């Protein structure tokens, strides 16, 4: 009997990273900007997408991939806005993986500008999985509390933009948006911060403008 030690150094996320890179290449070649939305359940991801659909309707074509553990509910909400949507039900899995996106990608119409992916509501696990997106948004709603960035640093560390949602509720809550933003910026310097109320419309114009500029950058090869 003999024993030997083998250096393996195998990245457990390597397969996901490869598939994500293929998706990114494919979407960029079609001129589609892909955004991955992360947050805990109930932070307002679907409501934000509905508000974006209302605002972008006449200017921009979008599609949405919805990730949830169960039900078609979120995809149905998006379809009611006249936006094509696909529901991925993970059946218990806590995050979406690039492979799941790859399966849906063939159905996504070529003539769109934005592909939004709404991840499973979870501020922890989705952070580890690249889905081939160009931009990652992390949403934090005012009722969740301004102390969350330091408690769930991975999500904020991996994001490009922090969207503070439900700002219309701030007057009724002990939520300090400056503290939330400062904490997130200490984890991820350079994070773009937006404050929106998707229901009232506050702050939506700035977010739309940012997205449109990002799309222009992608299409002119400056992404």
């Amino acid at each position: 009997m003999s024993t030997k030690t083998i250096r393996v150094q195998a990245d457990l996320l390597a397969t996901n990273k490869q598939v994500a890179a293929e998706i990114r290449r494919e979407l960029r070649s079609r001129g589609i900007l892909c955004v991955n939305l992360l947050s805990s359940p109930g932070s307002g991801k679907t409501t934000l997408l509905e508000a974006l659909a209302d605002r972008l309707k006449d200017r921009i074509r979008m599609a949405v991939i919805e990730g949830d553990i169960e039900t078609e509910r979120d995809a149905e909400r998006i379809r009611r806005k006249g936006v094509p949507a696909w529901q991925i039900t993970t059946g218990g899995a806590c995050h979406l993986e690039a492979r799941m996106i790859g399966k849906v990608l063939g159905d996504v119409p070529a003539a769109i500008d934005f592909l939004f992916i709404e991840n499973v509501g979870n501020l922890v696990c989705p952070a580890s999985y690249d889905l081939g997106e160009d931009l990652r948004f992390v949403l934090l709603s005012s009722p969740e509390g301004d102390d969350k960035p330091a408690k769930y640093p991975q999500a904020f560390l991996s994001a490009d933009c922090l969207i503070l949602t439900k700002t219309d509720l701030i007057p009724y809550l002990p939520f300090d948006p400056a503290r939330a933003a400062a904490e997130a910026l200490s984890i991820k310097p350079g994070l773009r911060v937006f404050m929106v109320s998707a229901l009232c419309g506050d702050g939506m114009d700035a977010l739309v403008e940012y997205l449109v500029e990002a799309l222009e950058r992608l299409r002119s090869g400056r992404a």
Partner: protein
Amino acid sequence: MHELSLIASVFDILEEKTREHGASRVTAVVLRVGRMSGVVPDLLESAFETYKNGTLAEGARLTIEVVPVKLRCPDCGGTSVREDTDFSCTACGSRRIEIVEGREIVVEKIELETDGA
């Protein structure tokens, strides 16, 4: 919590390496897990212990090395290790840093046992 699916990928690697080296079983596994990887070492251990029964790694012991967050600073050229979530350069305070370690989930090395000579 996706520790079980990560452990399933570990076992794919163990099977592949055992075959490749003509070994009979796996006796030790060392994982490197970054502090900012989003996975919990304790949960990886429980998942490993559950998963290994009836496999070629049935008797294997798992070691998890937690990798601290290491930053490289393009402004001063220094590297720093951070224990908290303030990811700024400890030498010059710059926030334009690059995280070079601390987000990985890696099978570092394994120990294989071969029957016979």
